[in-house]
């Protein structure tokens, strides 16, 4: 098995049963494993709600480390629609030429700096840096702000099950409070100020609601982007023929990015709270229990995808749910796609090959399921073209 391979730990249970209940801080979660079931549950917000105690739909649960509701992520339709309608145009800005050019220079500079000949630890020295610098574009904040975000390291926002979690999360919440107070005092044209000046359904957005949008933007787009970027680099290092093909056939790059998102599934799953007694996969789901939509398993569903465990760079039909599905699909997807697209363009342009020197897998554990989601450590050497 190659070092960049990401196995599918759900295959057998998905095929035999279609669901699995796993433990999480005394609030168990029934994971939905088949693509069709995942899609149906994602679409049915009335029965499978995102609007419960803040943090409860996240797995592992964040109820102990967060009281602010993430918006629009933890709001159900129809209220969700007003928030999403406000945010969508802002989060589609990565399609604008000026944004693309700025992102290109960020990626180009970072790749060029790392072509000097020394090895690079991708997670901390490349992906975290790229994610943080690119975030200044999404938020329309000064480039220098990324220095502080990089200094927080990779594990600042996530509940990892130890006593320090609350303190780690507080770093972000305190930062956002400070930035929002600054924006209230001196409005600019960044996302902080835009949110504080916005109205949703005729009502001015509160500071707490703005904070909810920003927590989502910071936390939701951190590990996921870092994993997507790092896993892409590991794959291309391990498969020089694929880097060559992407260089020779630029027309398949768009399809390749969707395939990376399917195969890597940077977010394993997302929860919902059951609002009324129902059944999932012929299994009783009680009101107030939790299910999760396992994007990672759905994306390897052998009844839908041919050769699900292979990266097929030009896969034509690819109905993946790597960015979620239905009304809560990923708000940052346009930004994420643009980052990957720019990265592939620059690597094809500047890098001849990538040596894979050292890897330490980042494995998530959901009871008996052990899923590689990325790397704790990934050392490579970029060789110039």
């Amino acid at each position, binding site marked *: 098995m190659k070092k960049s391979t990401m196995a599918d730990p759900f295959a057998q249970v998905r095929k035999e049963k279609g669901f699995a209940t796993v433990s999480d801080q005394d609030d168990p979660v029934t994971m939905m494993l088949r693509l069709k079931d995942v899609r149906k549950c994602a679409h049915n917000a009335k029965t499978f709600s995102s609007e419960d105690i803040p943090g409860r739909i996240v797995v592992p649960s964040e109820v102990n480390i967060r009281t602010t509701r993430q918006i629009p992520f933890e709001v159900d339709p129809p209220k969700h629609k007003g928030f999403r309608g406000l945010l969508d145009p802002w989060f589609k800005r990565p399609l604008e030429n000026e944004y693309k050019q700025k992102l290109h220079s960020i990626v180009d500079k970072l790749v060029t700096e790392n072509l000097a000949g020394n090895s690079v630890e991708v997670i901390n020295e490349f992906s975290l840096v790229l994610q943080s610098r690119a975030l200044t574009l999404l938020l329309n904040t000064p480039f220098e702000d990324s220095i502080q975000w990089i200094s927080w390291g990779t594990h600042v926002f996530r509940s990892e099950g130890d006593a320090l979690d609350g303190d780690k999360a507080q770093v972000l919440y305190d930062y956002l409070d400070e930035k929002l107070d600054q924006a209230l005092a001196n409005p600019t044209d960044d996302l902080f100020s835009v949110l504080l000046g916005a109205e949703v359904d005729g009502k001015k957005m509160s500071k707490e609601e703005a904070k909810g949008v920003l927590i989502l933007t910071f936390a939701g787009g951190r590990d996921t982007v870092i994993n997507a970027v790092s896993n892409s680099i590991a794959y291309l290092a391990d498969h020089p023929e694929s880097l060559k093909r992407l260089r020779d056939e630029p027309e398949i790059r768009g399809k390749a990015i969707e395939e990376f998102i399917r195969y890597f599934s940077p977010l394993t799953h997302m929860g919902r709270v059951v609002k009324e007694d129902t059944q999932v996969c012929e299994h009783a789901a009680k009101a107030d229990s939790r299910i999760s939509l396992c994007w990672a398993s759905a994306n390897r569903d052998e009844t839908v995808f041919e050769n699900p465990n292979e990266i097929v760079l030009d*896969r*034509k*039909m*690819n*109905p993946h749910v790597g*960015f979620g599905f239905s009304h809560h699909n990923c708000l940052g997807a346009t930004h994420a796609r643009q980052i990957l697209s720019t990265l592939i363009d620059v690597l094809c342009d500047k890098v001849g090959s990538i040596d894979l020197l050292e890897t330490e897998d980042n494995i998530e554990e959901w009871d008996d399921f052990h899923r590689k989601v990325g790397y704790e450590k990934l050392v490579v050497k970029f060789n110039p073209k």
Partner: protein
Amino acid sequence: MAKITFITTDDENITLEADSGSVMALAVENGVQGIDGDCGGVCSCATCHVHVKPEHMSKTGDASEIEQDMLELDDNVNEFSRLCCQIEITEDLDGLELTVAG
């Protein structure tokens, strides 16, 4: 060359010409409102949903099973629904009329 007309949710009629590629790509390149094509045409995002003029269904053919599964959960689905990333442009499409599902 095929002429294809898009009717947007604002009732704007846009007629475009092409001889190859997907209908979604044609719409996105020409900024047809309501056709986003976020996933680039791999049938993953359903942001290129159109309603085919009923008498033109024979030009486009039916949706594949994977496409139908996507459409089934879209709010504005009807029997004339297609994801236009899955419609390849050929001369046979000349005169096709599509309404953006919005």
